[in-house]
């Protein structure tokens, strides 16, 4: 079975007026199913461009990108849309939830675009909310939820179509450290228990330390590709933290 992501000599050029910006200058790597990969780099390193291409939102200028054995560069706009719908879940830094819309309806959104019946939509969206522990918040609107809860709704939305991969772009960028750990705990659980591949972009080494593998980019090139030796385990840290707060450490 082929790797989930196979990137060969990927290049992406933008034209900004008269200047051609080389966002990616020949990147090659593979991601196997079930991996948890962190992509790191300063801004302008090309990591966002790479994420857009991996997420089938953009096409490379040259080089090949095969996702799940399919050559993405040959797909039409509509085929890309259906690929995003069925195989990829997105999590954004700014959550991107629909305002004045219930958590459940937000989670249902991807299902609106693949002809799932109303009843199945509800039950699948509810199951996804259950998976992130927000089943009792299904009727809340985003402005009634905390940042961490909003991001959990967004993760539920990414999960609802049972994707092969979740692409998370700075998912903890707007959250405090405790909430970040909670979010990372969810990602780790989905990765371990459901076997969902996770690719996460971050510029914080602390967050990248939760992943199993780290790719570091600079100036459009892959600088470093190495396994994380002892990944942090979010749920243990959370337990530890709770213990600290209640002062029952060491009993």
């Amino acid at each position, binding site marked *: 079975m082929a790797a989930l992501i196979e990137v060969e000599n990927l290049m992406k050029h933008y034209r900004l007026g008269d200047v051609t910006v080389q966002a990616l200058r020949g990147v090659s790597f593979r991601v196997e199913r079930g991996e948890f990969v962190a992509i790191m780099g300063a801004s302008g390193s090309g990591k966002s461009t790479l994420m*857009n291409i991996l*997420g089938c*939102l*953009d096409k490379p200028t040259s080089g090949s990108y095969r996702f799940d054995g399919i050559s993405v560069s040959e797909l039409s*706009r*509509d085929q890309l*849309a*259906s690929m*995003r*719908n*069925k195989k990829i879940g*997105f999590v*954004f830094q700014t959550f*991107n939830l*629909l305002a*004045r*819309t219930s958590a459940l309806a937000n989670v249902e*959104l*991807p299902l*609106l*675009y*693949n*002809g799932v019946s109303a009843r199945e939509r509800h039950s699948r969206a509810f199951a996804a909310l259950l998976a992130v522990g927000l089943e009792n918040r299904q009727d809340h609107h985003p402005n009634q939820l905390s940042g961490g809860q909003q991001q959990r709704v967004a993760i539920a*939305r990414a999960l609802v*179509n049972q994707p092969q991969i979740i692409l998370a772009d700075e998912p903890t960028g707007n959250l405090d450290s405790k909430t970040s750990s909670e979010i990372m705990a969810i990602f780790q659980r989905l990765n371990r228990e459901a076997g969902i591949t996770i690719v996460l972009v971050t510029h914080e080494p602390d967050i990248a330390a939760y992943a199993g593998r780290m790719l570091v980019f600079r100036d459009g090139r892959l600088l470093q590709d190495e396994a994380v030796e002892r990944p942090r385990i979010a749920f243990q840290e959370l337990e530890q933290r709770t213990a600290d707060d209640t002062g029952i450490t060491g009993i």
Partner: protein
Amino acid sequence: MNLLINVRIALRALRVNRLRSALTMLGIIIGVAAVIAMVAVGSGATAQIQEQIRSIGSNVLIVLPGSTTSGGIRLGHGSVLTLSEDDAEAIARECPAVALAASSMRGTGQVVLGNDNWSTVIQGVTPEYLQIRDFIIQSGRPFTWQDVDGATKVALVGHTVMQNLFGGTDPVGQIIRIKKVPFTVIGTLAPKGQSAWGQDQDDIILMPISTAKRKVLGVSQANARAVGAIVAQARHAMMMQEAQEQVVALLRQRHRLQPDEEDDFSVRNLVEVFGAQEQSARVMSILLGAIASVSLVVGGIGIMNIMLVSVTERTREIGLRLAVGAKARDILTQFLVEAVTLSLIGGLVGIALGLSVSILISYFAMWSTLISWGAVAMAFAFSALVGISFGYYPARKAAFLDPIEALRYE
């Protein structure tokens, strides 16, 4: 993704921005209401004129005495009675395109009943006149040729005379004095309303022409058979022109006019005159409708404006929808349905408003309005069309947004 879901998404979005949606609809509401009300006013005017044409009688030609030259002095129309009862009989007999012809003589006189009196139009006519002018006997009986031959003193009274003179009592069988001559009322005429020139057609008393000449109006000693006017009815609306030509030819021959002499009578086709009026009312109604349609177009521009604002405002939402798998078609449909929903709801409210305004206009301004269901259907269809055509550009703009740019939009 089916249409129903799109409709639900659109309705949600409209409900979220209630005030804005209502204001946007207002443009369409006013447009549709204006079209319906204006067309109703226009058709009301047309219908009124048609009613007046009907009150003249159908396919009626009126022959009036014309100018004559007497010793080098040209006299005005009607100053000399150049038409006679024999002319009327000849027209009926000899013009194939004419079905009926009747003589008429007109004057005014004081009518007395007991202590009451009333000045009205006295018209002496032959029995066919009732038929040609479409006078309907409401009660009693019409007079006949026997009454004409015998110059009997019988009269038919119009509705206005009846109200002014008889109060609530039944006029039939009562004796009235017209210019001091006693007459028996043998029947009453059904109301005809105002004529096209504003004359009350019910303020009238009809009697046999012979009686009128001898007892009431007086006769010219020179020509005892002279009449004030002849009315003729063509066999068919299509034969009006033909009938007119035949009447002219016959009268020229009977009056022994040389080819270079002018007609000493004139033939008028009143339907033609009012036809022109009707035509202008029709043009007026089209014009009113057209002006009102402009406001509908302005309403459409309002929709386009708001949809463009909405697309810009919701750029991130569109980006998100595209990212989670919406196809360009889905986004296009969503925004198009929103625009069409705005215009259709606006259209429905506009129809309700337009109908009420039409009713209020006819109630308070006393204008006759006629609600045209064709215009209602057209205004509604047009508002849907406005929604589609003015909603398409913003919807297309939304559908072809770049998802990356859209997601990054602040």
